[in-house]
């Protein structure tokens, strides 16, 4: 496991996402209300790029015909077959135990000695552990 600086935090404001290639591994990073979450950018089903899917809320039903809808933007729907994944955990909604995409550890930190030009020299950077 190594830490990889992948960008400046200010470039991924809340509600936005960032697709990066981390040492050959496709990763998508989401900013949910100031918190960053990373997922392997590959649907476990057929390999659709989750980064191309839309972010929706979580629809649940206590009983038929009653729809609850919250957690706006925290579920990503695969651009291909529409499978829903919880951005916070990588777990599918329909069968969270069996079908999931790998969560990737993301943090923000000041990185003073980074050489990459993409990286903020005077602010928080997004750091992926992979």
């Amino acid at each position: 496991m190594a830490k990889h600086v992948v960008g400046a935090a200010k470039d991924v404001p809340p509600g936005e996402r960032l697709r990066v290639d981390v040492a050959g591994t496709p990763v998508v990073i989401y900013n949910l209300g100031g918190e960053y979450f990373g997922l392997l950018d590959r649907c476990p089903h057929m390999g659709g790029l989750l980064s191309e899917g839309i972010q929706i809320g979580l629809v649940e039903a206590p009983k038929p015909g009653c729809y609850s809808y919250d957690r706006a933007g925290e579920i990503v729907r695969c651009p291909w077959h529409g499978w829903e994944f919880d951005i916070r955990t990588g777990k599918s909604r329909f069968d969270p135990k069996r079908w999931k995409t790998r969560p990737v550890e993301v943090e923000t930190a000041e990185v003073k000695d980074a050489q990459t030009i993409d990286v903020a020299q005077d602010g928080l950077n997004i750091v992926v552990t992979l």
Partner: protein
Amino acid sequence: MPAPPPGAIDCDLHPAVPNLKALLPYLDDHWRDMVVQRGVHELDSISYPNNAPVTARQDWKPATGKAGVDLDRVRAEALDGFRTDLAICNCLYGVQLLYTEDMAYAFARAVNDWMAAEWLDKEPRLRASIVVPPQNPDYAAAEIDRLAGDKRFVQVLMLVMDEMPLGRRRYWPIYRAAERHGLPIGIHAGSSYRNPVTSVGWPTYYAEDSAAQAQAFQSTLSSLIMEGVFAEFPDLKVVLLESGFAWLPAHLWRLGKFWRGLRMETPWVDRHPMEIAKDHVRLTIQPRDAPPSPEDFERLMTHFDSDEMLLFSTDYPHWQFDGDDALPAGLSPALAEKICRTNPLATYPRLKEIVA
């Protein structure tokens, strides 16, 4: 393994209403008079033309009139013939097909009272399904409530094709009443013919109507699951009668595949449809739309991933097999025992109750 083991429970037996006249004693004065005044015709459905091969097996057919009208023959051919302990009577007289809901309600009541008096009172091995008028689900629920105290009625009977797919909420009063009384919903082949029997219009041949029943059961199962019938009524069981069964696994693969991507459309469906079906859906084994070779039959059985879904039936007097060849070849003795006895007892709680 052609014949069932002794003590089997036959989940689909068809005593027939010989003619409308037989129901007259069970209609109230108004409707009895209407039948005579208006010259109401026999309510025999085109689903089973009286002389069509499937409607009566040759050796179960009387010289004149309908098969399945004679209690002694039913005793000899269906009950003693297969050494069955119990058999569930599903009367297919076409009351569901009427357009006047009041009339349908009156005839449904008459059929049920006729069933109790002419069959159940006379033969202790018989049980029956409550015929209800789907034309008006509130009437249907009232009929269920009226008869639920008689424990010889073990199920509620509907036809697989009606005005709307059976999962639609319009029908839920029926399911609510059935669940309340611990009665499974038996869904039998047939139609009220409000719509063409195929999704691409009316067929040319009777054989097509017969074949199309399997597709109707598939779409009905989609409807029951996707509408959330089993979420709303978690204790409800549905038994598919004369449905065929070989289609079930492949159909649920497909429904499950789409559900994974369209879950948000029916968020109350919180498990794979296959899992829901394993808990709530049972199927009778006639007709046997299964592969002819025992090896292929065994392979098909593995696709079910459950040994609790199939229930024994003869479909008497319908012609689905010859001799006593009521079970598919390729069935292990253990599975045969489950299908013939254990599964029916688990499906119909009332079969275990001692009838006073």
